[in-house]
């Protein structure tokens, strides 16, 4: 969806920069001025204008630290305003990440600021072109992960490497998704986790980088160094460290630390874009899913759950479209039925007097299904020919079907699974395919991460 983003000073309404996404004509200043003007006018009257929708579009205003006003005009996502706010928040935090909070809050020289703030453009553009991203972390506020059996092995390699970098913050990224990270890395806030993964993915490809970063929550004013080294195509190891060691000195060590892990890394890399183990069976009809743990801020997504034989199944939905639908469906459900960690997303769900457990939408071209249980939320996309969704939940036949399939290696995990599932979840007896996967993945994540 096309979008405009305007950044102005909150006090004087001086335009600082504007970004556009999609095929949109640049807006004349008077239009930007009046958009900012109404907001300023309202706030002078102690009214804050949050958002406005037209039939097709939505405008959102947000002021950060009484210094910057961000205005976004985009197609209406038909969802809770919290998603637009989340995006604007990410935009601002990414500016903090690159530019530092002090300089953002106290703009001394506007002209100079305009020139300098250009360093943020690549991050802002990445965020704006979110539907081209292969990850969902920008909307879920939970960092994308890749689930591999090798992760446990790699953890040891990573810990050792990060130690050598005189740091305790490090992670291994596979195509922009976290495979493993040090214990300390997970203490970053969700926004930091998301942005750190994103800045690596958004930066130009190179074998090693040394990027100064201001961690928006942990250290917004003092910069740290983010060192990244490419281990193989799409696999990068990152470490956040202080003044030492230098990029070059650590680069010498990279080979020594990671050579032994080559096969494992290769195996993990091969899981992209499936993002979860190949030995985990998945129904043919599932076109993609998104699993979010709102407590640990981790998410797992896939829109290519398996190698598709187009000759057999016929042409199916393209991956871009799947991603788009999952994204829209996520936005529709979170903030309407499910609460999330995104600011303001729990208002509407709390209006219901009873808790929403599951929801689905069926249409001619696809079916969407969402379930939440404890901290986990899962959003799945199905083919339209898939039997009715509620079947999944209500009929036990499907369960048996999964278990009785000879090629299913998870029969062995069956008993294990039952132990993992929280005792209150007896409805397991009634759940079907989706839920099986849901629980399997949670189980996996519990074990590995």
């Amino acid at each position: 969806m096309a979008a405009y983003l305007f950044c102005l000073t909150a006090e004087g309404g001086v335009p600082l920069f504007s970004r556009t996404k999609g095929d949109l004509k640049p807006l004349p200043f008077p239009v930007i001025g009046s958009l900012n003007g109404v907001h300023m006018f309202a706030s002078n009257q102690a009214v804050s204008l949050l958002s406005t929708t037209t039939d097709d579009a939505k405008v959102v205003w947000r002021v950060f630290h009484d210094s910057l006003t961000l205005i976004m005009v985009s197609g209406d996502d038909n969802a809770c305003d919290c998603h637009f706010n989340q995006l604007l928040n990410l935009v601002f935090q990414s500016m903090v990440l690159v530019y530092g909070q002090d300089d953002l809050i106290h703009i001394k020289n506007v002209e100079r600021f305009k020139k300098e703030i250009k360093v943020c453009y690549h991050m802002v553009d990445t965020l704006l072109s979110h539907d081209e991203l292969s990850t969902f972390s920008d909307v879920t506020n939970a960092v994308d992960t890749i689930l591999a059996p090798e992760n446990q092995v790699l953890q040891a390699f990573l810990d050792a490497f990060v130690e050598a970098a005189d740091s305790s913050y490090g992670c291994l990224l596979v195509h922009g998704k976290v495979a493993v990270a040090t214990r300390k890395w997970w203490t970053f806030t969700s926004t930091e986790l998301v942005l750190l993964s994103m800045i690596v993915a958004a930066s130009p490809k190179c074998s090693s980088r040394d990027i100064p970063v201001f961690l928006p929550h942990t250290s917004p004013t003092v910069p740290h160094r983010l060192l990244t080294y490419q281990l193989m195509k799409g696999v990068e190891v990152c470490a956040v460290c202080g003044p030492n060691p230098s990029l070059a000195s650590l680069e010498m060590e990279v080979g020594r630390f990671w050579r032994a892990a080559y096969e494992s890394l290769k195996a993990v890399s091969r899981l992209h874009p499936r993002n979860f183990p190949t030995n985990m069976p998945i129904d043919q009809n599932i076109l993609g899913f998104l699993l979010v743990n709102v407590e640990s801020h981790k998410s797992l997504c896939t829109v290519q759950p398996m190698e598709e034989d187009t000759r057999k199944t016929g042409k199916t939905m393209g991956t871009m479209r799947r991603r788009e639908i999952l994204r829209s469906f996520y936005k529709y459900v979170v903030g309407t039925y499910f609460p999330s960690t995104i600011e303001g997303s729990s208002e509407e769900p709390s209006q219901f007097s009873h808790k929403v457990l599951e929801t689905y939408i069926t249409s001619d071209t696809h079916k969407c299904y969402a379930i939440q249980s404890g901290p986990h939320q899962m959003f799945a996309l199905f083919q339209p020919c898939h039997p009715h969704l509620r079947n999944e939940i209500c009929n036990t036949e499907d369960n048996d079907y999964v278990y009785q399939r000879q090629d299913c290696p998870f029969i062995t995990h069956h008993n294990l699974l039952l132990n993992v599932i929280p005792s209150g979840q007896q409805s397991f007896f009634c759940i079907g395919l989706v839920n099986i996967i849901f629980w399997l993945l949670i189980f996996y994540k519990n074990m590995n991460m």
Partner: protein
Amino acid sequence: MGEARHRERTSKVEPSKCHCYAQGRDGFPNTLPRSLNPNSNQTKVCNGLACDIASDGLPAHRGSAMSCEGSREEDVNNRYRSLQIQHNGHNDKVLQCTCKFKYTKSGFHIWSSRVCHNRNMDGALTEVYISINSKFAHSGCNKNSSLCEKLLGIVPGVLPRDCPVDSKNNLNVSQKKGTCEKNEGPVCVKGLVPDSSALRCRKIKAGQVLLTINDCRVSWRTVDAVLSELQASRNSNKVKLTLKTLPVHETCAPVLRKRNLLSGQVISHAVNGDNCSPLPPGGSVLYLTLDETEKEENGGKENVLYQFPKTGSKVEAIRGAFITLSHTLKDLTDTPTKSSSLLIDSSPCQVCYHVEGRNLLIMAAAACRKSLFELETILSDLVRLLHVLYGTIDCAFTDPGNHPSLDHLFTMVYQCFLGADRRETVAFPYLSCLPSAQALLLSEEVKGQLSTELSSFEAGDFADKSDDKCGVRRAYTILGSCVFYKGHLLTSHLPTSDLLDIHLFLAYHGLLHLGDNWPVKQLIFWQEIFPTRRCQDVPEKHVFGYFEPDGRWFLLIVGVEHGLLCVLLESGGCCTRMEGSPTPDCFFIDQAKATLLQLMSSQLIKHCELRLQSGVIPSLSADWFYNGKQNNMQPTVRWSGDLINQISNPTDRDYIVRSNRLDKNSPLTVPLDSPTFQRSASLNGTISGIGDKGHRLARSSDLSGLKSCVIPSSHSSRLSVRGDTSLFHYLYFDSVEAVFIASPPHIQGPVHRELMKNFHQTCLSIRKLFGLSQRVQTLLDEDSERCFGVDVTFDLVEEHGILFQYKPEWPHAAKKSQTLTYWVVGRVFSKPMPQELYVCFHESTPQNLVELAFRLSFGHSLQ
């Protein structure tokens, strides 16, 4: 007899000077609001609304009054009338409301009123000087009129002697005894004769007691003597009257029973323009213009053509922002601005826009009260309603004469639709977001009868009043009519669009709600309207050779007790085109009333009540899962436990199917010939074939006990047709007929109420999604380029479901068996006609049955 008298009077009426009469105990104290804004251009109207509420179901033939008089030359005084309403509540307590009615160019509106408890007027004596009408020329008097009527213009009544100020013996009681009963009771003012001096002096009010005439004490017995003496003497044209205002019992408030609190409010709003209860904060309506306005007219506020409430608000303070926004965004996005969310003093607030040419209508409400979607729906409904009532939005707002009635309308809207907190709502205003009237499914036979009666009325073939006899071309053609009973549509002979217009009017003026909860003694409404079908959505292409006649349209609503008959009339076309502000024909109103009374036969009422009580499909209350808990915890636990076990065991899958089988042992309370029974039977017949295996299981599992424990005996009569059910609630909406049917909300209980609230809220959500899907489809069909692109995720949505879980908060409730899990599912069918069905059912319902139910539902047509 009443009819005959009416007819007689009608013939007396001169066409140029229209008078409608009503006799009865109510009169028209001539109170003139100070805020009157004279407008000499306004011509006389004779439209009226009178409602008289009597819960004791007194026959309405002595009806209260239809106001109405006036001629072109009449001064503005006649544009306001007030009417007293007496509600004889329970325990014979009286609630008196005075409402003033306002005449405007376009019609007649309740303008303001007050519930008069006569607090400060207790026993107050009023002295009034009026001139005697010695010529007996009160056009309202006929030969049978008493002297009091002829001379003073006061319709006399009598109060029991022993308790002249005891309100417990209200006027009705004495009236019932008959005015011929001669006793020593004092004379009371039962009503005022139209066009009389008593009416003009504005000090005499119905319900007052006439104590003296020229300082001579009078009673019922002596009044005639005194008056004839007066008439004979003729020494003075003026006569001095002393009147005493009867105190109304102060304890009339408890009359409004708790259940009816909301409706009590509605009544006081329907008759009451005063803001007796505070408006919800954050609510405001503004009509803004970009054009220059004269500052004096608007109290120094630029751009504001209309403002509600009158006190300034934050929303009003930043009105400039809304104007700018609506214009900027229109240019920027090519689509009109819909809504904004604001934070006013850190409390969220929603604003909706409607652009009308260069003007802008905005409506604001606190966000915690209503979701944006509801507010948008209400605004678009209001816009339609204003179009219907005034022709155009501009007309409605630019004419200051309309402002009082708009104030009243918005007060109603804010208090009844936007005011109530989501949790406290008694009725479900969510239903108002469906563009349809709630229909009551009647048996074909009853429906046929209704239709026949209505048709014969619509034919307009009234023997005495036929064209031949009068020699005048008839004034109106009846386009169609519809009948409501207790807020439910019984039958409609109107095109969908007209029905929607009328339904909107009834709903937003609280009349539907009024009829739902309070028996109305008589209600008459007459107004020129501008039907959407004729004035707004006029199709571009006409069918060749046919044109809809150009005319004027009038809405007549007649209400008696719980029934409402709405008639849409056309003037022009095949009948004479009325000029000016025509009046309703008394005869016609009588006919309508007679028709309604005829329709509301005891048989029909019984039938309707049965349907209202039990519904067509029996449903389950959520509380029955928990009611057992206090008394006997075992059964509920066993039930849900059993059910889950049964489902989880594939061999017992037919269990549910079986349980839907017709249980022949259960007592049948629904008459065998009723369609309910037949439909259930056929449905069950279909299913029982599948469920043969279940028979065996029935014997093995303890089902008989199960049923009786799940369904408490007090409810068993309602649920007896089927063994048990897993349906909590349903709502079926047919957009072609513009009606919806829903299971009656007869089931009470805290959990169920929450469930219902959730259901309605979820329905809105689902409906919003369906609307979105429809919009995406049209956009795709049009193939129009949208500058921001179209999100096609929700294209062609068919079904949307949400699973809810309720865990009771009381201790020991942690067990799984104590949780209640239920689905709310909405499905839309676009073929053969757009229909929507929303169901709320227990999680245990197997998929195949749900599917079957959906299919059956869409096979079923309402009309």
